[in-house]
């Protein structure tokens, strides 16, 4: 298949998706729009997370920390001045954030700033821990998330402590969230399939051999972490605008756990796999709300247990690890060749069925 055909097919799908979003914005009620938005944000977070965990093979537990950074930065930049005056009760909001508020059309700039601050966080956590081989990154990133949690609770002049920041204007429209989602998939996939991605995969397969091939292992690991952190920050920023509030409890380790489930289910190392499972996960999470509400089955009254959804996801994860370890996509990427190959196989199968019938 030529590059051109692939481009046409992809553009076609993107156009169809844009039409759907245009329709959804006008016809779907707020709840469904919100699910769509959340799905897009999970796509951004999961696809970038798989770059460091799946492609470079470095076990990071950091996305909740990076998302928190992005979330708080966006909140501080776009919160209206009136809110900034009213919201901080214990301590006034620190300069310079108490002097300005970015207008809606500068929202992308705020999100970008969130990503850049997360990049700085990526450097801080990656620089010492990535020089070492092994599980140090996992420990350091986990600690990083906890540090952010503590800071968010205690830097009251910036974060308003445990009360969090409320009344963030919801600038996260479907266009912004899905625009970022598609941009993230495109960029991360390009990177993963480039020479840089190959070097990262080489590190995943064998660090010593990668260094013997001339790869600067430390630099490439740091690159993977920092790019991943950037989009983590973006996802956090979009989330803050979408749910119009940030507080320390939004970006706890549960967030990282959710993303871990997504990228493992999607197939560690597949960016498109992560994107597809991110959407499935969001939808499933909404559908499973049922199990957390009281259910009556005939005479049986089941009480709703909050947190039951996580139990189901955990069981799902264990089952997957036992029976289908490679996840949905394995390490492969979505490709048109594969899709058309499936159709062709089906076509051929039915064709041979018919010829079989004729012979009979």
């Amino acid at each position: 298949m030529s590059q051109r055909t692939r481009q046409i097919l992809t553009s076609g799908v993107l156009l169809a998706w844009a039409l759907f979003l245009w329709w959804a914005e006008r016809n779907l009620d707020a709840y469904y729009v919100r699910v769509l938005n959340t799905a897009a944000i999970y796509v951004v977070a999961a696809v970038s997370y798989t770059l460091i965990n799946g492609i470079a093979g470095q076990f990071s537990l950091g996305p909740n920390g990076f998302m928190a950074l992005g979330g708080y930065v966006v909140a501080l930049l776009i919160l209206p001045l009136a809110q900034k005056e009213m919201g901080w009760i214990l301590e006034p909001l620190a300069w310079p954030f108490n002097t300005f508020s970015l207008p809606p059309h500068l929202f992308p700039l705020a999100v970008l700033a969130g990503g850049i601050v997360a990049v700085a966080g990526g450097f801080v956590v990656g620089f010492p821990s990535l020089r070492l081989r092994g599980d140090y990154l996992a420990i350091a990133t986990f600690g990083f998330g906890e540090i952010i949690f503590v800071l968010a609770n205690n830097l009251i002049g910036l974060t308003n402590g445990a009360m969090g920041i409320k009344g963030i204007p919801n600038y996260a429209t479907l266009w912004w969230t899905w625009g970022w989602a598609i941009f993230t998939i495109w960029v991360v996939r390009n990177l993963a399939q480039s020479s840089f991605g190959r070097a990262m995969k080489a590190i995943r397969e064998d660090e010593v051999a990668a260094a013997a091939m001339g790869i600067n292992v430390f630099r490439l690991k740091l690159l993977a972490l920092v790019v991943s952190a950037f989009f983590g920050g973006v996802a956090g920023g979009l989330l803050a605008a979408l749910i119009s509030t940030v507080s320390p409890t939004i970006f706890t380790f549960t967030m990282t756990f959710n993303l871990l489930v997504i990228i493992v289910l999607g197939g560690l190392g597949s960016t498109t796999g992560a994107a597809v499972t991110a959407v499935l996960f969001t939808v499933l999470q909404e559908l499973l709300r049922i199990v957390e509400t009281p259910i009556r089955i005939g005479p049986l009254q089941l009480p709703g247990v909050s947190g039951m959804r996580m139990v189901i996801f955990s069981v799902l994860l264990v089952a997957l690890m036992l029976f289908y370890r490679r996840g949905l996509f394995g390490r492969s990427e979505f490709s048109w060749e594969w899709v058309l190959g499936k159709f062709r196989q089906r076509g051929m199968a039915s064709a041979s069925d018919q010829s079989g019938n004729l012979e009979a």
Partner: protein
Amino acid sequence: MQATSREILKLERVTMNFGGLTAVSDFSLDLFPGELVGLIGPNGAGKTTVFNLITGQYTPTRGRIYFEGRDITGWPPHLVTAAGIARTFQNIRLFGGLSVLENVLVAYHVRLRATFWEAMFQLPRYNREERRMRQEGMELLRRVGLERLAEAEAGSLPYGQQRQLEIARALATGPRLLLLDEPAAGMNPEETRRLMDFIQHIRREFNLTILLIEHDMQLVMGICERIRVLDYGVSIAEGPPEAIQKDPRVIAAYLGEAEEEDVVG
């Protein structure tokens, strides 16, 4: 004359201690361009440690290492590779999940001039370089006879071909000095013979200096021009294969204490 005979690699009284254990002691070695030298010795003699010292896996406790006149002591592995030294490993270390071609392409990454921004946004300069790298990779695979397997997963290749690919991958870094760590390990005599031809072939074709560690005497005696023998981290003999085969110290090192006493006595 002076220029051609100048050593490509020079180890000057290199010592490596691990805690109380001296793995390599006062080891000196001169390699001249185009030579094929064997490094032999009983298990645990410190041969692989010598390789790890040359390639920067370890930094020597004492002593200096020069490559083409430059002091490379303590350089990290990726810089040593970039300087022109490539190696293979005793226990094959391919990128098992990547294809044969990708294994080779990884080695070209250091030469990439496009930045990661250009790769991320698929800008023309990067795409041009990627195409060129793939062409070169295929060309290299053709030269070593692996081109038909380019798309196969490296980890799924039969043993002999994995060895061959590991050497091809090392060649892709564009080395002038190649270090082969037990290339014939686990091979039958027939495979070993083919490997000997292969080593001779790439040595001419790529204009290489080769230092190899080997246990297989058929291979060492068959292709090495000069052999160095290590025992307990100490260099005990050096010379052409015929002389080494008869050297009493070497025989003692391989056959053990009793013989050594006889020899000394």
